[in-house]
């Protein structure tokens, strides 16, 4: 594993998660530094989303520890950890602009979170500027159901970023989008990651996406396997790879190293690999 450095933001120590007798995750020990872009890949049910939910604070560890800045991670969601889900990430009853202004309003400790007067004007300007960054300035007055899937995800990202989170969690954010739109979204996410100096965790089914986007790639899989009790052992991080996004030779090298992976039952990622 990695050597510890100063700017460690997330630390997992022998982390595990079980539901009754079903072990989902076991023995996950990693350090994540501020500013890393980590993609989590693996077969369905391998615990990568569970890991994300633990960082989010809606699932708690049953074994080991998960630390944020050296302290146990809060057991409920908070504004330091932004999230974009695959769907239902935006508020359907608010326009695009209102969705982002509401996010600003939630930052203020008030009963209702409504903003008035000068505060609202400032929030509106900030929201407009943020929506421009994600390319939605032409759709400020529309409701989410009038937006395409890609535009809804752009809105969800804008909403998350206006709260200036340190960590951005992406749970298969582009899984439902067309390939062409995905490429646009990739460019957007990389751009925002650099601009806002975020630490990003992204769960994806698409290994290619993981290589292209991440600075670091985790592959979740079961190390031990009991054919008579498939749930007796949980998954762990079997590959922890640093990924350079621009260096083609490095990409090839990792691609070669990762090739055996389809053999160890990551069927979800075997298809995109064939294309090369």
């Amino acid at each position, binding site marked *: 594993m990695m050597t510890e450095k100063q700017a460690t933001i997330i630390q997992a120590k022998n982390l595990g998660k079980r539901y009754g007798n079903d072990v989902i995750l076991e023995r996950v020990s990693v350090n994540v530094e501020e500013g890393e872009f980590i993609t989590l890949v693996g077969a369905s049910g391998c615990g990568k989303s569970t890991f994300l939910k633990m960082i989010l604070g809606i699932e708690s560890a049953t074994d080991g520890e998960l630390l944020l800045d050296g302290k146990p991670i809060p057991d409920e969601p908070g504004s330091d950890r932004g*999230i974009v889900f695959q769907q239902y990430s935006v508020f359907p009853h608010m326009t695009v602009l209102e969705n982002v202004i509401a996010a600003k309003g*939630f930052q203020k400790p008030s009963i209702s979170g409504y903003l008035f007067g000068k505060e609202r004007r400032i929030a509106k300007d900030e929201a407009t500027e943020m929506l421009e960054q994600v390319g939605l300035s032409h759709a400020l007055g529309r409701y989410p159901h009038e937006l395409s899937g890609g535009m809804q995800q752009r809105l969800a990202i804008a909403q998350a970023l206006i709260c200036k989170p340190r960590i951005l969690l992406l749970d298969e954010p582009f899984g439902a989008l067309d390939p062409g739109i995905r490429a646009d979204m990739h460019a957007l996410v990389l751009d925002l990651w650099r601009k806002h100096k975020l630490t990003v965790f992204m769960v994806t089914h698409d290994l290619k996406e993981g290589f292209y986007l991440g600075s670091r790639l985790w592959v979740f899989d079961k190390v031990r396997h009991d054919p008579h009790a498939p749930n007796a052992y949980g998954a762990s991080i079997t590959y922890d790879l640093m990924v350079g996004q621009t260096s083609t030779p490095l990409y090839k090298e990792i691609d070669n190293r990762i090739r055996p992976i389809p053999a160890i039952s990551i069927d979800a990622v075997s298809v995109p690999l064939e294309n090369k």
Partner: protein
Amino acid sequence: MKKFINAKPNRTNTILLGLLPFALLILVYMIGSDARLAINPSDKLLPSFSHMGESMMRMAFEPSKRTGDYLFWQDTLSSLTRLGAGVLIAACIGLLVGVLTGSLPFVSASFSPLLTVVSLVPPLALLPILFIVVGLGEVSKIALIAIGITPFIARDIQGRTQEIPSEQLVKAQTLGASTSQILIRVILPQIMPKLIDAVRLSLGSGWLFLIAAEAIASTDGLGYRIFLVRRYLSMDVILPYVAWITLLAFLVDYLLSKLNQRLFPWNYEVSS
């Protein structure tokens, strides 16, 4: 020739086919009425349409000899006021209880079992208790309507609140929202159109409780009137009153559905 299951009427035919049963019912009534009146001109069971018209003209446009009121309009106003007040109270309580039990596990743990039991109590069985406790005035009638439909609205809203995707609640929290902010800005606005739908569904029972309460203890109202004139077999008044109640029920339902589309366009589009 298409299979019958695939055959669809065009626009004009749809309207004509929809009107046909109404026309048939009216025709059957007229034939029956004529047949009976031919045998006995003073028959009261199936009065002719002209007879009903005369009676209604008298009810609506001639002041009552006893009170000086225009009975038809007075009855309508009283009944609608009671129904409106009862439904409004039920909607407010139902919304509050439903949203809170649907979103806050601690409130749900405390009140859901009670709500389930209360919703099983037959409201009409409580009517005598209401008469004893609050007397025979307006309060008992409004209370019956409110008590009768509040549990339904509360449980419906509770379910609708639970249907809001948990992703939205988590998302709001990652944006820094507090419990009250989530309730007021995320849950409540999304529940309002569902509340109007719940009210529309509960209006049927609302009318039932209204007419029951008016039949038993009242001095005016649509329900009071039809039960009063029943003593004189005045079908010429009862039948138009029933038609009028039906029309009112239809209009209220129609207006509420239009209101829903107007106020909450985002909801209408999502569900379509």
